[in-house]
């Protein structure tokens, strides 16, 4: 009796949780049916989803992809049924993407649609080093070589074939090397002074001159001349600043560039054209349309509005009273009026504001107004970034003895821009969505084209298919951009707190 023990000396093994709280059942109990209200909400939602699905799914899955007209679709579907007529998308998707860009069907034109495709592929290559830091320098060059090589192959001809194959071989070679070397080993090599490929940002700097040339065509010497203006400005600065000091050097360099652009570029271009005519078939602006137009307007507006927005934001934050008043006035004016009124200005008034006899084309006018619109919003986003920066950063820059521009360039802007990246991306999404408004002043963006397509006898009155297709494309673009901005936010989070 003495060694009788009532205290358990060993732990019991853990029992498995009850079946109702683990696995799928447990998840359902926790997330869908915990409590009466939640259960009711779940059932209501399920009924709602079922109803919407039952209405939409049979409509979407209709075998009308090859229908040639609305009546044809009706025959395929059969009387009494209501279903989509996808034939219209099959027939017109190229138009919805490219507008009336020459596709080789009329007269002696050839299919030019490779140009916008190449331009946008190159755009992707040009922004990769800025947007995706995890892609290495070598892979950037691989992308560029691959795009150029494929273009060469597509264009064909003996020279194109050889050039394309050479470029693709180069891409494969660099790509193989990049994939076969270990990341850390490569980092060590670079540390030790191994030779690297040139910075891909060089291509990003050249791209703004290539893209308009690809899209609008014409002589290559005009964009080359425009680019030369910057080169001239740079050399003028580096020579003159030694003689007359840096500030006067900057002013003189700007003057030299402007003189070049205004008076000498035209002569240079026509001279070079006479010596060595290289060019693409010119395409008029009024042939632009569809998503190509939306993307062109969106990208140009955002690319131009970023520098203007930075300047405006700095002006708004500055101590100079007159400069500040001008910037505040501009920003608040643009933000106070709807974009549609600015587009009215583009379509009716901009020609009146210019010297008599000037007549520049509607797409350029729209680009100017959308850029101004976007830069006001961009300025506010960047101002937010500037204001979010701790005061200590400004004071530290002053304490280091940096002057205003150096402080901005080295201390303030890198941090402020980083903070405002989500805002910049959402401004971009907003501007991209707003490009549909150009259909109101008669440009053929996707929405404008859908009206034109509906006016066609064969597709008279088709609404859902066209709107659905356009909405889907916009959704894909905007949604992926907003996801990208979330990714950036995560990557750039350095936590000041």
């Amino acid at each position, binding site marked *: 009796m003495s060694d009788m023990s009532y205290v358990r000396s060993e732990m019991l093994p853990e029992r498995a949780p009850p079946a109702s709280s683990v696995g799928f059942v447990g998840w359902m109990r926790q997330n869908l049916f915990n409590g009466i209200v939640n259960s009711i909400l*779940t059932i209501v939602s399920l009924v709602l989803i079922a109803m919407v699905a039952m209405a939409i799914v049979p409509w979407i899955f209709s075998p009308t992809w090859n229908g040639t007209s609305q009546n044809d679709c009706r025959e395929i579907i059969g009387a009494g049924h209501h279903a989509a007529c996808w034939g219209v998308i099959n027939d017109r998707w190229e138009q919805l993407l490219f507008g009336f860009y020459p596709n080789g069907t009329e007269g002696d034109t050839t299919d030019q649609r490779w140009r916008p495709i190449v331009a946008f592929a190159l755009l992707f290559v040009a922004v990769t080093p800025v947007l995706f830091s995890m892609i290495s320098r070598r892979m950037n060059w691989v992308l560029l070589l691959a795009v150029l090589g494929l273009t060469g192959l597509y264009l064909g001809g003996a020279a194109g074939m050889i050039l394309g194959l050479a470029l693709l071989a180069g891409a494969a070679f660099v790509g193989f090397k990049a994939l076969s070397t270990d990341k850390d080993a490569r980092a060590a090599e670079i540390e030790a002074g191994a030779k690297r490929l040139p910075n891909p940002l060089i291509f990003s700097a050249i791209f703004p001159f290539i893209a308009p040339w690809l899209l609008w065509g014409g002589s290559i010497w005009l964009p080359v001349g425009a680019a030369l203006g910057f080169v001239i400005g740079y050399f003028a600065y580096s020579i003159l600043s030694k003689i007359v000091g840096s500030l006067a050097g900057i002013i003189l360099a700007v003057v030299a560039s402007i003189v070049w652009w205004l008076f000498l570029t035209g002569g240079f271009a026509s001279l070079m054209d006479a010596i060595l005519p290289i060019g693409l078939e010119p395409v008029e602006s009024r042939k632009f349309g569809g998503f190509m137009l939306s993307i062109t307007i969106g990208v140009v507006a955002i690319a131009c509005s970023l520098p203007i927005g930075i300047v405006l934001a700095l002006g708004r934050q500055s101590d100079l009273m*007159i400069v500040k008043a001008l910037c505040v006035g501009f920003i608040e004016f643009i933000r106070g009026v709807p974009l549609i009124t600015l587009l009215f200005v583009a379509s009716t008034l901009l020609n009146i504001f210019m010297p*008599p006899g000037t007549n520049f084309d509607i797409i350029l006018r729209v680009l100017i107004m959308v850029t101004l619109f976007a830069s006001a919003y961009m300025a506010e986003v960047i101002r937010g970034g500037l204001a979010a920066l701790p005061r200590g950063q400004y004071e530290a820059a002053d304490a280091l003895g940096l002057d205003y521009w150096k402080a901005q360039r080295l201390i303030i802007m890198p941090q402020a821009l980083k903070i405002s990246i989500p805002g910049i991306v959402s401004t971009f999404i907003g501007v991209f969505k707003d490009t549909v408004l150009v259909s109101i002043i008669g440009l053929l963006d996707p929405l404008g084209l859908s009206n034109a397509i509906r006016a066609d006898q064969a597709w008279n009155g088709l609404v859902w298919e066209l709107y659905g297709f356009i*909405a889907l494309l916009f959704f894909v673009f905007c949604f992926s951009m907003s996801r990208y901005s979330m990714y950036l936010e995560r990557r750039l989070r350095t936590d000041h707190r």
Partner: protein
Amino acid sequence: MTSMTDPHQGQFRLSMLLYDSRYRSMTIQIVALIGFLILVFWLISNTAQNLAELGKEPSFGFMSEPAGYDINQRLLEYNSQDTHLRASLMGLLNTLLVAVMGCIAATIIGVIVGVLRLSPNWIVSRLAAVYVEMFRNVPVLLWIVFIMAVLIETLPAPSAFRKGEASMALWDSVAITNRGVYIPEPLFSNSLGNIHLLGQSSLRFDVSLDLLAIAAVFLAGILTSMLIKRRADAIQESTGDRPATWYWRLGVVVIPTVIVLTILGLHWGYPELKGFNFKGGTYMRNSLIALWLALSLYTGAFIAEIVRAGILAVSKGQSEAAGALGLRPNRTMSLVILPQALRVIIPPLISNYLNLTKNSSLAIAVGYMDITGTLGGITMNQTGRELETVLLLMAVYLAISLTISSVMNWYNESVKLKER
């Protein structure tokens, strides 16, 4: 050492304008101002020259000429013989109407969806997320024309009501047709009549004495109710007991209002099918409904995100602290959580109201006659006065925007955390 910090005493040289920080800011500002003035002068002189060539002297005289077009959805009385000014006024009122209706609906949608998005219920929060992403990532103009198409294509025509294929909703009081929605209108059998203001001018309008009387009684009721609350507060301060006053406070608002409505003889005018269309009731055209729905659904998606962010911004410690102080859950909500969440929610909310108002200018796509459709649309095309109409249009929108944003600034100022 003093000599190092002393300012340079030498005489003024021209290069000091650029290199001496005492003068440089002045130089930059003057250069900027001169540049701006040159730009403005250049634009104005170009415009004057161009307009002179076209033979269009800038003048706003056209605003007092007869408009000659009809406005099918309007708040005040108007006919096509009225002036362009009055047509623009109708447009402005229509803009404000859809903006106010849109802001109210968008707020309701946004708050509900924002709260549902935070729901622990998986399906519900996913549905809310789908709604938000769907509306945020597709242009609002597309939504407007899409909803317009839904209304036209899926709703029954008035003739379907005659054949009995469709019936009126809500106990035969609301007729939803593909031409628009007819809702009952309030009528007064002992009406006090109207007052005509501003005679025969373009800005004339009527004030309904019935509405004035109802509003006066209602406001008086609310004021009395506030006095009762103040007295209850005073009693609570001095004795610690709070008298139950909610039935008094409700009574002084509801009972007098109901009495006035009864005296005026309130009854409802229901829409009725006469001939090919409905008569009676208040008629809301398709264009108004499409615009209203699209703007509120689109802006509601943005507001939902704002509400969600606002609720998440209040840290958990706040509600725990309130619990530790012994506050009950509803008091925690009204005294601790909401004031802090609203501080985060209201500024972006108001800027979304601003966006909604500006987006209402897309009415032109569905033919709703807002100020862009009247002044910037038909008036501009009829008179050919692009410069004047666009400037006026911008001025109107700018005035609306600046009013709203000054309200926002005033609010921000009043809720700002008072530090040090």
